């Protein structure tokens, strides 16, 4: 068999180049890994990042995995937060790419754990922001939760996240309702917007989970308390016309509150807070007989204790 020396030499060159490239690539990854192990994540990033998009690395799953891990550690060490925190976003992009490219089973398991950690970090931040809620932070909370949800779905596409989203909506409803209860001075337009946002979030929560007792009860309370607040704003300067108009508005809110309170009561018929809510609502609606009936139920429950 006659071998074409030129073809043979060309093949040798190609194979050698490929081997060298692969070895060189592997050395960059190893160097970054070593730097990471020593805790110098910034240096590790500097070692690997510039070469990551070169042809040698573009299809190297392990390189993207290591880069993702480095970004994740940098996210942790810098204490950055927010839905657009760059290191976290980079970490996710790199890890997802690594998973697409393929890795050995050990790396894959670590990558999944890292993604899971990042996903939870979004969730924790969202909940933390709900806990210390301030007016106007809803978009960021929802963005954080959205990233959590997207990551969770990428890790487990069959997972049903609807109940969690429903819970988040309820928490947001409560957070808004708390602002209404607080004594911080706010314009009436802002208070109206906060109230409507609270009602909207409770509505979303109930769309996701119509049998959510807390969402039903809290929605009723938010509507009712808003009516009471309106009543309390009446003063000696309020005219008869305004008084009638305000009363109409309050009664409208009380009537709207009745339905979710009844729905909550239907779920837990012996729960005292709901019975008290119904007693109070009927009283506010001048429905004495109904109010007294709920009062009697409460007294019966209390008497049996």
């Amino acid at each position, binding site marked *: 068999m006659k071998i074409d020396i030129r073809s043979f030499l060309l093949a040798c060159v190609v194979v050698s180049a490929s081997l060298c490239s692969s070895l060189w690539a592997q050395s960059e990854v190893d160097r970054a890994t070593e730097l990471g192990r020593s805790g110098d994540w910034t240096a590790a990033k500097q070692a690997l990042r510039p070469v990551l998009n070169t042809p040698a690395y573009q299809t190297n799953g392990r390189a993207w995995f290591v880069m993702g891990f480095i970004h994740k550690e940098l996210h942790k060490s810098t204490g950055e937060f927010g839905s657009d925190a760059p290191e976290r976003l980079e970490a996710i992009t790199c890890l997802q790419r690594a998973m697409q490219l393929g890795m050995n089973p050990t790396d894959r398991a670590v990558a999944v754990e890292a993604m899971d950690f990042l996903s939870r970090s979004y969730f924790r931040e969202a909940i933390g922001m709900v806990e210390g809620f301030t007016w106007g932070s809803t978009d960021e909370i929802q963005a954080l939760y959205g990233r959590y949800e997207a990551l969770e779905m990428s890790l487990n596409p069959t997972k049903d996240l609807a109940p969690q989203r429903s819970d988040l909506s309820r928490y947001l409803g409560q957070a808004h309702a708390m602002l209404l209860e607080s004594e911080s001075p706010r314009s009436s337009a802002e208070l109206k917007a906060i109230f409507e946002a609270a009602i909207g979030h409770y509505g979303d929560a109930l769309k996701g989970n119509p049998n959510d007792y807390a969402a039903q009860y809290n929605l009723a*309370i938010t509507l009712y308390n808003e009516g009471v607040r309106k009543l309390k704003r009446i003063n000696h300067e309020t005219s008869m016309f305004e008084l009638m108009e305000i009363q109409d508005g309050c009664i409208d809110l009380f009537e709207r509150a009745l339905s979710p309170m009844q729905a909550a009561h239907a779920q837990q018929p012996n729960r005292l807070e709901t019975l008290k809510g119904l007693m109070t609502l009927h009283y506010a609606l001048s429905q004495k007989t109904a*109010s007294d009936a709920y009062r009697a139920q409460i007294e019966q429950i209390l008497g049996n204790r």
Partner: protein
Amino acid sequence: MHAVSDELSARQASPSFSTRERKVMVRGKERFGSSTWKSSRVARGFIAALICCICGIDVPTLEAQSQFTQTSTLDESDTRSITKANFLFHFAASNEWPSEFMEGPFRLAIIGNPSLHAILSDKYAMKSIGLQSLEILGFEDVASLESAPFVHVIYCEESGAKLQRIADAISNAPVLLISDASDGLQNGALINFVSVNNRIRYEINSEEAAKRDLLIGNRILSWAVK
């Protein structure tokens, strides 16, 4: 007047509970696992979720979040009394008494409804009716009113014969008697609160008011249901 006062002090205008009942309700509330939205509770829930995360438990799940389950707090203000207080102030401010009664303090008496008295005192005690300073008086029963000086407005929630006896006792004086009873006007009240489409409205016996030299203002008349 003594005779009509027997049960007045026992009546409650708002659906409130005794201290004992409240304590039991609080215990019940705890037992049912609900509480008001308190940051400490939220923080505990959050920490629990965090611990679960750290421990690698498959969270955040609903199980972890169930510790966040909260219920809001009902505003226990007496809404009917708030509304009535506003009406009473308007009744005092928009009607006219004979000139000899438009000097000195303007007295508004509430019988047997401490919640309404408290709201009126809180909102209107420092206000004036025309040139008269407004005095809000609260009485446990009708008997206590006998020893009081002249009052321009009396609000009580009695009905039937008991209300009629109060009306008879003040029949010769320009006192605006206001009730909240289905038979209020028939038994001597000049203004009676009624419920119309879940709202608090009022009806007026303007003829009887005129007999007592009380001039009901147009604004009050125009909003009356009859």
